[in-house]
Each structure stands twice: as structure tokens, then as C-alpha cells.
């Protein structure tokens, strides 16, 4: 089963920390809206780096 990052928008503080560490350009911060695209391979580094704990992995 593949895994993919998802964002809890209630927690996200749209700071871009996750964008900085994503090696696959899977995350983009469109002003205050975090987009996660199909490049995400579930590596989980963004989950670890998020200051708010707003990201998690789900099975897809």
C-alpha cells in the first residue's frame, strides 16, 4: 500500500517548512493554501519537520 501526506488545514500555519524539505516538489504553498500533488511518495520528512504537527501520512 502506498502512503501519501495529508494536511490538517485547521492546524497548518502555512509556513512552508514542509516545502523546504520535500525533495520531490510534491508540496507547494499557494499563499496560505498548502497543495500536495501526486509526486508525494510518502517519505514522511514533511511530517517530521512541520512545526504544528499538521501533516500526517495516510494509506492510499
Amino acid at each position, binding site marked *: 500500500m502506498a502512503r501519501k501526506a495529508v494536511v490538517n488545514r485547521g492546524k497548518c*500555519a502555512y*509556513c512552508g*517548512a514542509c516545502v523546504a*524539505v520535500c525533495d520531490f*516538489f510534491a508540496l507547494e504553498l*499557494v499563499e496560505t493554501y498548502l497543495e500536495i500533488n501526486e509526486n508525494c511518495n510518502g517519505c514522511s520528512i514533511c511530517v517530521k*519537520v512541520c*512545526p504544528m504537527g499538521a501533516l500526517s501520512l495516510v494509506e492510499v
Partner: protein
Amino acid sequence: MFDVIVVGAGPAGSMAAKTCAENGLKVLLIEKRQEIGTPVRCAEGISKQGLKRFVEIDRKWIAAEVIGAKIYAPDGTEITMAEEMAGNEVGFVLERKIFDRHLARLAAKAGAEVIVKTAFISFERRDGRLKVKMRRMGEEWEVETKILIGADGVESKVGRMAGIIRTLRKSEIESCAQYLMSNVEIDENYTYFYLGNELAPGGYAWIFPKGNKCANVGIGVLPSKAKANAKYYLDKFIEKFGIEGKIVELVCGAVPVYGEIETAVSDNIMLAGDAAYHSDPITGGGIANALCAGYYAGKVAYEAVKKNDFSAGFLRKYDELWKSDFGWKLRRNKKLQEFFLKLDDQTLNSLAKSISGRNIKEMSVQAIIVELLKSNPHLVDLIKNLLI
């Protein structure tokens, strides 16, 4: 066609655009957000020196002035670094919402075109020029330029797409959370730093006064060492120290603590500020270096346009400038950071004790190291070897 397109209207980008415009270049500054300077991602501390070099001080964006810093070891041992003479304020705490806008306006005033709500998407090299793809107010937009300056901060798309830098690892970035709090009871003449492996793994907590009993209370942790997210550690810190006050704003962000990159250029492209990992690996401070890098990038862009040479070879002049200005310090502080990261709380306590009560007049990493070496001769060889 533009001479220069600058991506990102933070301190690095605005300073670059301003410098280009002042030298008569046709420059476009794009910022993806609709409001420059917000949301803030900063604790807003800067040394007076670092600021004065590049910007004329304007009280409108100075929130507070400090005479020094106090550093606390895990057991509470205090190290004070301060200018004792009144009137010798060494540091400022800025109001970045206003500061960043001020800088962008200076760029505009100098003749730069400034466009907000416009994001850099990608670029293509063609006949020695760049075709830059952007999204402007939701519409695709393509413009040609001779030079592209990536000042897009820690997200750093330009640099990674150009292959100049590689993506940061968990051990190369500080994950930060901060509250602006009101009714904070502190001596507002100082900034405060708190160390400890439990308290802030791989980073530190801070309190920076913002005047009128307000303060930035924040924390940075290294994700490779932290067991939870930054906000968790921040809440713990506030609880432990019984910091009372009302939270009136939340700020999050990340700072590169990479050290010195080998080069910040490729053909037609220069990176400045956090986009080039220019922030300090020990303090996490990056405003002063961003201003400095932006200024140099603007200068070299001007020379490149004059010579009609946009090759990486020519743009390396920019590398020479930022490296000899502050790059060497990033290199040194990266090594020192790696050294400090290995110390347990007990060692931190005893090192702090060895210099606590000393009269440290200068507010710098170097001043602390010098004091530490004076009191701990056994460290001399260690640090020396480290720095060679």
C-alpha cells in the same frame, strides 16, 4: 524583456531589486503573497550593525532596542552579554510586517516593478536568456529575462530547480514555532536564549521584547533530534518557565542551518538570503545576511548586464563577495554547531558555569567562544582542530 527578475520580496529580494534599479537596470520583483511581509516567519532580532550597513533606520519598524543578551544553560546558569553604557543599544527587534514592506517600497521607489500575488513556477534557458513562467493573480504569465535572482526564502524553488542547491535534510533545518505574547514581565533591555537537549533539542528557545510588555516567545528544534513538533516544545517551555501573558499571534517557520553552500550561482541565476541557506547555523539569524546578499547580487547583476555576460563564470563574482563577507562565518558556525550539538546538558551547564558572571561586552558567537576557551584550556585544541 527584463534585465533582472527577482523572486520573493523578503529582505534579500527587495534589497536585490532596489540595488538593480538604483543602477539603472530594468527589474521586476515578484512576490507570491498578496501582502508583503505577512504572515511573518521571524523572531525579528537583528544587530544594529547588520542593519545599518544597508538600510537607513526608521523608527516606524523598530519595535524595541536592546543592550544585550542573556543565555541560560539547562540548569539556569546565566551568561550575560551586554553593552554597559546607556545609549549603546546593540540590537533591534523589528516589526517585520512594516520593515519588509518598507524595503519593497524602497525598491519600487528606485524604479523596480513590484508585483504581488505572483508566483514563480519554472524557467527555461533559451539563447543565453531565461524564459520565466509565473502565475500572476491566477493566470499563467511568461516573461524573458537576462538574470533571475532567487530570493524565495527557505522554500527555495529557484535554487533547487536550477540544481544549485540540494533539498535540506532533517538535520539542516530548524523547525520553529512562536507566539507573540502580551503582558510578558521581563527586563526589556535584553533578548533571552534558553538552551537544553530536553527543552529544545538541537535548537533553543527565545524571548525577544517587542515593547509595551509584548514579546516574541518562540522555539526552534532540529527535526532529526526532536521527538515532537516545535509547538509541543514551545508550550512546554512556556509552562516550565511560568510565562504568563496572552497569546495574540502565532508564527511558524523554518530556518536553514546548512552552513556555507559551495556556489550560489549558475548560468543566468543567483540565489540570495535563505534561498541560498544564508542564515546562521548557530543563531538562525538570517535578516542581515539576506540584506547583504541581496545587495551584492544586485551589484553583480548590474556588472553582468553592463558586460553582457550572464555565465556562471562571471556571476561567481557574487560568490566571492558574499563568501568573503559572511560565508566564512557560516562555514565556521556550522562546525561549531555540530560541536555544540554533541554536548549533553551536564556539559552545557558546566561550560556555562565556567563563564557565568564574566563581563562579555560583545554580543556575538565569537565572543562566547573566546570566553569559553579562556576558561577551558582543554577545549583549545579541540576547537582549533575543528576550525582548520
